């Protein structure tokens, strides 16, 4: 039955969106920075996986561990070199800065891997039966790891001391500082974590989708749509919205064609921005 197939397909895609969006949201929450370069971290994650696993015959699980470290390092570099200096700057300057960094990263990716598509065949092949639907192993694994990681990070945010520090910096930086939390450490750590999550999403995508340096832009806009629908700054909102939008994209795409299908996400985002800017669960967006 196509409907359940579509639904499951949508949810599986949503899991990846959740991982992307949660990382983006973390960074936004702590730094009020919309990280335009997040998509590039995803692309670099995917392409690095292709190189490691496809080119150097690393096992896939090694990529799962190593590649996020790489993207975390890139993220830290971004923060230390550029964004740290812009902490008190007007938002538009940080937006422009991350926008600029994203173009630099795209260029770097094109130079490293060429501009074409790269697949990763032979990894996580095969399919399983899930609720009467044929599901590819790679998508299922991607979904489980992505959603699992998102939920794990959520647990860290809610239940650990570090998570509490992150949340207090998000909500009231001055108060957090007074109570002894090192703003700098939290920002560094959050940025690295968010970047790692983007990289991980890239790793998980590599076996299923074809990777190219422009992958970042496409995914980024969808991640934006997710956090706007879910509510900027709301972590559970991002997860819920990700799953919802994954379904919308797949189901919508089935009925209206792939091109309009991806436009549906943006239309939903625009509708939310105009009608309920807070999103499902987030903070305000209106003037």
């Amino acid at each position, binding site marked *: 039955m196509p409907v359940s197939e579509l639904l499951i397909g949508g949810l599986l895609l949503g899991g990846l969106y959740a991982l992307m969006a949660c990382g983006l949201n973390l960074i936004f929450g702590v730094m009020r920075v919309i990280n335009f370069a997040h998509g590039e971290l995803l692309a670099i994650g995917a392409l690095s996986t292709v190189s490691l696993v496809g080119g150097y015959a690393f096992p896939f699980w090694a990529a799962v561990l190593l590649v996020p470290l790489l993207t975390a390092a890139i993220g830290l570099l971004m923060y230390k070199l550029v964004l740290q200096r812009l902490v008190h700057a007007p938002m538009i300057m940080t937006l422009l800065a991350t926008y*600029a960094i994203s173009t630099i990263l795209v260029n770097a990716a094109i*130079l490293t891997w060429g501009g074409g598509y790269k697949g990763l065949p032979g990894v996580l092949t095969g399919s399983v039966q899930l609720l009467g639907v044929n599901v590819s192993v790679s998508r299922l694994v991607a979904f489980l790891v992505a959603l699992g990681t998102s939920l794990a990070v959520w647990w860290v945010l809610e239940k650990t001391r570090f998570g509490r520090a992150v949340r207090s910096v998000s909500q009231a930086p001055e108060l957090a500082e007074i109570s002894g939390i090192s703003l700098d450490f939290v920002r560094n750590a959050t940025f690295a974590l968010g970047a790692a999550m983007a990289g991980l999403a890239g790793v998980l995508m590599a076996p299923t989708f074809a990777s190219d340096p422009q992958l970042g832009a496409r995914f980024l806009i969808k991640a934006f749509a997710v956090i*706007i629908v879910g509510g900027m700054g709301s972590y559970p909102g991002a997860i819920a919205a990700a799953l919802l939008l994954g379904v919308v994209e797949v189901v919508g795409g089935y009925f209206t064609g792939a091109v309009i299908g991806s436009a549906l996400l943006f239309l939903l985002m625009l509708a939310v921005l*105009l009608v309920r800017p807070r999103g499902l669960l987030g903070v305000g967006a209106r003037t």
Partner: protein
Amino acid sequence: MKTLAILLAAGFLALTVPFWGTDYAVSFTIQMLVFMILAYSWNLIGGYTGYTHFGQVCFFGVGGYTGALLVTKLGIAWYFAVPLAALMGVLLAVPLGMAMLRLKGPYFAIGMFGLARVLESFVLGFDSLTQGGTGLYLTPLSNLKPVYFTLVVLALVMMIATWRLDNSRLGLKLLAIREDEQAAEALGVRTTRLKVGTFVVSAIAPAAVGALYAAYLGFIDPPTAFSPVMELTTIAIVLLGGMGTVFGPLVGAVVLSVINELLWARFPEGYLAIVGTLILLAVLFMPRGIVNLAMKKGWLPAGRGLLRQLAREDGRAPPKPAPPLADDVKRVQA
């Protein structure tokens, strides 16, 4: 007055290029003029009013396709198609502006970005009309001079309009919106009306230029019409040049076009990275742009001179021109 003289001189110089320049020079100047006009338009809503956004290509693309469709499907000559494309831009900008300008800073910016992607998808999708990804082909122009002159005139119009704005109370009101919209609103500035009006005006030239560009290239397709790189370059120009100034887009367009040419010649693979780095350097070390630096050093006449002029005539205030602000991204909290 000095400012106007400089602008007219630049315009005059541009007008003469087809007569002494090579075809290559003409092409180069056309590209530069296109970016200059886009930059001046973006400067209105982004630089003066403070509503920066990543969606100007919406109007460029819609204008481009409107023009191309009018020419190919209805056989209208390009010089009639261009104003109609501009009209289309306005028709799109009015409802869009009223809807989107209700959003705060980054949401507005991203919303416009998303809108550009939506429009790109639609154009790609309705391929029965637009030929989708293949693009539309127009008959190549035998003579580029009319297009060239139209662009120069358009650029001059934008420059002079910006100059008039810079020296008017309207300009001050837009700046007030940029600085503190709520306070401006509470003090009687009609912010909604002004924002939407400026947004609509900022859409006219891009739409017209889109159609002109399509005629010039003889071709248009979704990536060309809604190119994020074009968006990035436009913003880079205004930022590098100086947001909310009269000379900013002019200087930025010239500088970036020259860098562009040099890069394409020597390092085509590094173009994106270099533009990106330039923007980063501008954001970090020169957020007010080249022009503000130049004004501080006295190389360019200071901006917004109307009030000083009137004060001088009133006889009460000393006629000392104010040096522009230091290059410092940090804003002092009032």
